[in-house]
């Protein structure tokens, strides 16, 4: 059984930096970069965070595909843990929030292999707020009917929301429940603006829940994808609303969303789930606010010019430098020894 708390600790060990990242081949190629550059960026961002005692979070699946970043992150955690040896350095771990039915792919063998590097947090249909009558059996996870697609999308959204909350997991026969710390900062890059699987592009929804939780958001727009769309929206002036932040645009560009929205009319929607339109409105509300106070709204811990630079840069070293500096300011992460 899992419960959620509103309370948040600010201790360094409690810092969890989430990565919202996916590989968009065309976007990266247009910048003269490939998958290896993205992996390098990920490692250069993740390594100092771990050495500073914070943990990572990544809500990805465990399919061993080239554009999945669970395994590169696990390898970084594992290498850092091994390197720390007897140094006394407290190395963080990876929290992998995995929604139904993705977590069905995580066998005991996989989990056991990485257990000291990673805590898998399974987000069930019940945790997503679906009623017992609407919960589907695991065996039907491969179906492509409206109910299954709807439940998947609901659980995916719930995962993004629950990542931002402290959770307590009751393990059978263990006296104390296990604490899963909430995400306290997020780094976003890449991502699909269309042809996504849930109710919103992952980058948009994860940016929104992080902003709503008043946690720092580091958007690396220089590497394309939905992050670039969001970065451009933030860097614009005035009150013009980008069309990618409107429901009409998404209806027109993502047929899967139309199916989901049809389902939402037929099926009972969990009370905590905002409509797509309201979510896009809320996100645009933050965009408008940020246009007036960019570092304050995004809580980057950087100056206004630095935050703008972060939103634009496609230079890996520059991006890493800015994120690290921002995290040290905003989350008080310690300076690493030279």
């Amino acid at each position, binding site marked *: 059984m899992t419960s959620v708390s509103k309370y948040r600790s600010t201790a360094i060990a409690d810092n969890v930096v989430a990565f919202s990242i996916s590989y968009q081949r065309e976007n990266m190629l247009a910048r003269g970069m490939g998958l290896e550059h993205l992996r390098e960026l990920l490692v250069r961002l993740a390594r100092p965070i771990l050495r500073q005692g914070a943990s990572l979070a990544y809500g990805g699946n465990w399919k061993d595909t080239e554009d999945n970043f669970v395994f590169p992150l696990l390898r970084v955690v594992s290498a850092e843990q091994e390197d720390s040896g007897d140094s006394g350095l407290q190395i963080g771990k990876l929290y992998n929030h995995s929604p139904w039915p993705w977590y069905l792919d995580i066998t005991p063998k996989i989990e056991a292999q990485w257990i000291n590097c990673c805590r898998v947090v399974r987000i069930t249909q019940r945790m997503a707020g679906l009623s017992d009558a609407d919960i589907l059996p695991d065996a039907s996870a491969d179906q492509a009917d409206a109910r299954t697609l709807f439940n998947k999308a609901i659980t995916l959204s719930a995962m993004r929301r629950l990542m931002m909350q402290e959770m307590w997991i009751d393990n059978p026969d*263990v006296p104390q429940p296990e604490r899963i710390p909430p995400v306290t900062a997020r780094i976003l890059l890449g991502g699909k603006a269309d042809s996504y699987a849930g109710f919103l592009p992952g980058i948009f929804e994860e940016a929104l829940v992080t902003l709503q939780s008043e946690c720092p958001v580091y958007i690396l727009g220089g590497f394309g994808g939905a992050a670039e769309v969001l970065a451009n929206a933030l860097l614009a002036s005035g009150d013009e609303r980008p069309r990618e932040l409107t429901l009409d645009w998404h209806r027109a560009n993502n047929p899967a969303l139309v199916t989901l929205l049809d389902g939402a009319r037929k099926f009972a929607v969990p009370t905590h789930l905002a409509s797509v339109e309201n979510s896009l409105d809320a996100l645009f509300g933050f965009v408008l606010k940020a246009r007036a106070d960019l570092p304050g709204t995004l809580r980057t811990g950087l100056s206004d010019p630095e935050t703008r630079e972060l939103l634009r840069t496609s230079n890996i070293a520059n991006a890493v430098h800015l994120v690290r500096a921002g995290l040290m300011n905003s989350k008080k992460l310690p300076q690493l020894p030279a």
Partner: protein
Amino acid sequence: MVSDTYVRTRQRVSNLQVVLPLIEENMVADQSWRHWLGELALGNPPEMHRVMIPVALDATAYNMPAALREMNYLRPTGLPLSEPTAGKAFENVVRSLLKQITEAMCRVMLPRPAISSAGAAPLPDAPLPKVNVFLSHAKQDGTEPARRLRDYIYSQTQLTAFFDENDIAFGSKFSRVIQSGLSASDTAAFIAVRSAAYGSRPWCRRESSLFRRPHLLENSVAGQAERWFVYPSVVVEAMKAGTSSIGVSEFGNSTLIRWADDVANLEELIVTTVIRDAMLASFHSALGSSIPSNANQIIINTLPDPTTLLHIPRIRAGAPHDLLYPGRGLSGLELAILSDLFPALTFRSFEEALL
């Protein structure tokens, strides 16, 4: 020097807790198992000595919590299996695991001196020394079985072997080194390779006589039973067909295994048998120590035989005593013979004593 008064610490069954977690991926991935095994590995409960012997059934076993994964796991050979619980491969894994567990349990349960030969008490967490097996053989008849047993012990087990060719330094006094090897606190078992010449070789007879002599446990106190410990031995029958030899009474009721050069895994059978017997000897000793007793009792950790009993001074003196021994009871024939030879003794099994 080996003598009737050589003393060892005794262990009680009731204060030793052995935890043998068979660790595989499901256990590693389960937070409840991780929590409780981690707790068990961290320390001893009051009045209890806990020993963890983790077993790795797959490669993920080493991902258990730090308190556990710092330990050297038992690793049965033949894993992973393609068929989980059937066939020859599975039997081999089980055999390998049983062999390793037997060896580990023997190491855990073997009574050790409270004070080392150097005069110091061992540290509480000090690793237990290796268990030593004394190999006794008559060189006159060749060294093939003894050499093969020694090679097996060093290549396939965590035991050590006392083998005269290796363990008596050139120029050292032969008798002193052998006596030292026999009386070493880690020597738990004895394998006698009984060839035709064995019974007529004085040093072979002396070795078996010294080793089979019972030891008075140091915790035997006034008002309670005397507790005696006998180390087990296995006799490897290596006489060639048609040869003759004199009997060796010192072997008592030792297990007998026939040697053959061409039988597969014979070394494993012999060594595992003697180590299993050593483990059982230690267990029975601990069990005997847990039995409420009085001064009119003598407790022994093996089935009684005349040669062994004659080494115990109170029995030789002929005073009436109850003799408690492990197991459910002796056969009528055995009891009749022992009662004839030792009329002052009443023979009772542990099970009878505990009723």
